[in-house]
């Protein structure tokens, strides 16, 4: 068990004498990068050296030249930056080509134009992310990591992540596995008896490419962030901030089939509790083994997600309903996720579902880059600053191989 990350006296005694230099792999100038640099200033640490995913992937920069033996590497989200997305798609093109999921060649990547919300090739993107991690690893065989790279890759492979959580006894929604098509989905729903499911992209972030689907055999209802548009004889998928409702089986089938080209998996749709006239779930950031910053994510629909502008709810109202014992259990679950499944990672953002009677909870997602919660404080520090002060040789792992 690790020490309290917010116990500064303990952290301080373990810190190297020199200030900790941080190498940040991310998107220069992005909100995340700026906020992280600001947190370093507040923590009286030197600014991080920032290397972009684009430079990293093009191997323009030899990052080994930028570090010392004390350097701590933080890999942050490639975010919504289109050029970065392109660079990742380039990097993932070879691995994606060898599979049957939707992919594009490097030449086609160059021809892609930015379209707001378009779901490009999440499987290929994921391979690109893994490639980036491998490049860092090969250039920096011996440095400290805020988050272990195998863990980051695992968190971005949702079906595999769910399996690891299950193996470790973490409560999760029951998994119906990966599906190939809508027909396949219907068959599994009949076999399992489930009437309500979530269909998720295996490598999506936020509520990207998510469908909440229910049927009783005759009626069908899908609420989703996904929009389908015809482009020539092909379909294109877009994430929309407007939630769409589909009630025709053929439309839903078409949507699911299209999404399946990008690798999807299905889990039971567990009903969520409501508070203050909305549905909610919780985002809990665990830092150095302790559940810390917590946000109530409100929504009017099954996709409760900050990026969907659902808004934040009152944490006290929720904790009052859950009760102190239930709250402690819930925090313990989140901490167990990190200590038993990701012991070599300093932090992650965990999404937790609370049952309508406030008595049960399950882990919905573990987000490697789920620590962007601006202005949410815990013991006077935001998430980034809490992570920075939690840095100590014992809380971090040295580089270990990415499988």
């Amino acid at each position, binding site marked *: 068990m690790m020490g309290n990350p917010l116990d500064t006296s303990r952290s301080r005694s373990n810190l190297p004498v020199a200030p900790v230099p941080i190498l940040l792999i991310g998107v220069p100038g992005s909100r995340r990068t700026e906020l992280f640099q600001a947190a370093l200033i507040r923590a009286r640490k030197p600014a991080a050296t920032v290397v972009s995913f684009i430079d990293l992937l093009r191997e323009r920069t030899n990052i080994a030249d930028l570090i010392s033996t004390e350097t701590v590497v933080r890999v942050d989200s490639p975010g919504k930056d289109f050029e970065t997305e392109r660079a990742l798609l380039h990097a993932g093109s070879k691995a994606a080509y060898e599979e049957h999921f939707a992919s594009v060649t490097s030449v086609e990547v160059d021809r892609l134009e930015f379209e707001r919300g378009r779901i490009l090739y999440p499987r290929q993107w994921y391979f690109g992310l893994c490639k980036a991690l491998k490049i860092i690893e090969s250039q920096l065989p011996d440095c400290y990591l805020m988050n272990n790279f195998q863990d980051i890759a695992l968190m971005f492979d949702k079906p595999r992540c769910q399996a690891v959580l299950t193996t470790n006894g973490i409560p999760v929604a029951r998994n119906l596995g990966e599906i190939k098509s809508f027909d396949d989905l219907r068959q599994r729903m009949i076999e399992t008896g489930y009437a309500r499911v979530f269909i998720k992209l295996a490598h999506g972030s936020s509520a990207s490419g998510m469908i909440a689907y229910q049927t009783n*055999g005759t009626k069908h209802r899908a609420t989703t962030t996904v929009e389908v548009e015809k482009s020539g004889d092909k379909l294109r998928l877009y994430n929309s901030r407007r939630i769409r*409702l589909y009630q025709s089986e053929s439309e839903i089938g078409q949507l699911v089939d299209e999404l399946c080209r990008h690798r999807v998996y299905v889990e039971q749709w567990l009903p969520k509790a409501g508070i203050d*006239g909305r549905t909610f779930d919780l985002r809990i950031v665990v830092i150095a083994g302790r559940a810390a910053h917590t946000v109530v994510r409100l929504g009017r629909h099954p996709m409760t997600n900050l990026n969907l502008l659902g808004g934040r709810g009152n944490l006290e109202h929720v904790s009052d309903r859950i009760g102190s014992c239930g709250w402690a259990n819930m925090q313990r679950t989140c901490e167990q996720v990190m200590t038993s499944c990701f012991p070599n990672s300093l932090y992650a953002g965990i999404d937790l579902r609370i049952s309508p009677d406030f*008595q049960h909870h399950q882990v919905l997602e573990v987000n490697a880059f789920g620590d962007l919660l601006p202005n949410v404080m815990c013991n006077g520090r935001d998430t980034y600053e809490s992570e920075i002060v939690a840095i100590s040789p014992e809380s971090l792992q040295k580089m270990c191989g990415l499988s």
Partner: protein
Amino acid sequence: MSLYEHTAELFGKPVKEWKPGMPLDDPSGTAYRLGIDYDEAESGVTWDARFGEFLSLPASSSVTSIVVGAWGDTGPLSNSSAVVNSLSQMSGKLLSLRALFIGDIIGEEYEISWIEQSDMAPIFVAYPELEHFRVRGANGLRFGPLNHNRLRSLIVESGGLDVSVVRDITSSSLPELEHLELWLGDDGYGANAEVVDLAPILSGKHFPKLRYLGLRDSVLSDAIAAAAAHSPLLEGLRVLDLSLGTLSDDGVAALLASPGIKNLEFLDLHHHYCSPEMISKLMALGIKVDTSDEQEPDEDDGESTRYVAVAE
């Protein structure tokens, strides 16, 4: 809109979620909620088992109010007939039951239009002392007609009420009925009653003790307002509730022209499509009016549509 939270109150009493092992320490002041949470259904808990455990507590005979939540399915929700039957058969144990809500189910569990109800008549036969009854979901719902001498409140929540249910109620004998609330819903979800079907209610003769009339969540709000405006019912009514519906300026104009409207204590119009001008005229009536939750019509393909609050 959907329904997001389990009810916190039943006819004035706070609701407490009852789980096995919990004592019934306030049987007359608390409404106990019996529901099988999805997580419990997954682990095999059934309605019969939960209800049986509740009844095994001696204090259950003093319980006055019960809320029934989801009755324990992980697939499509089965209809409520098993719940109705068990409640009816066990009326000899629930000697003090006066208030009952069947179907405290939120959209995250089952959307209102997916809740399968059944014939509620056996409840009213088994509980002649019942005073308050509330039900959510109208698929398969029937009432009899009822012949009940104690019932004071009847609330039917739906996203689309079939006219057969309206007719069951308007042909029922409920001499003590003071509070009637019907969520009529959207025609896309099965609402098919016309204003004429509500005439027995609006006549003021059928339920002479009616003090609260809610014709809510309706696509017919304007027409209902026009009919209600000239209803003799207004003489005795304290609350007219046309909330959650599609009320527009036309309906408000009819209400403003009504001589009886000022007799009301409260006019509930929240969730409406009225203009600020008409709202200010309503405010000048001198009675309490709720005009919150103003809506904008949905403009799509050149068509303007006003939606009710709860349909699907």
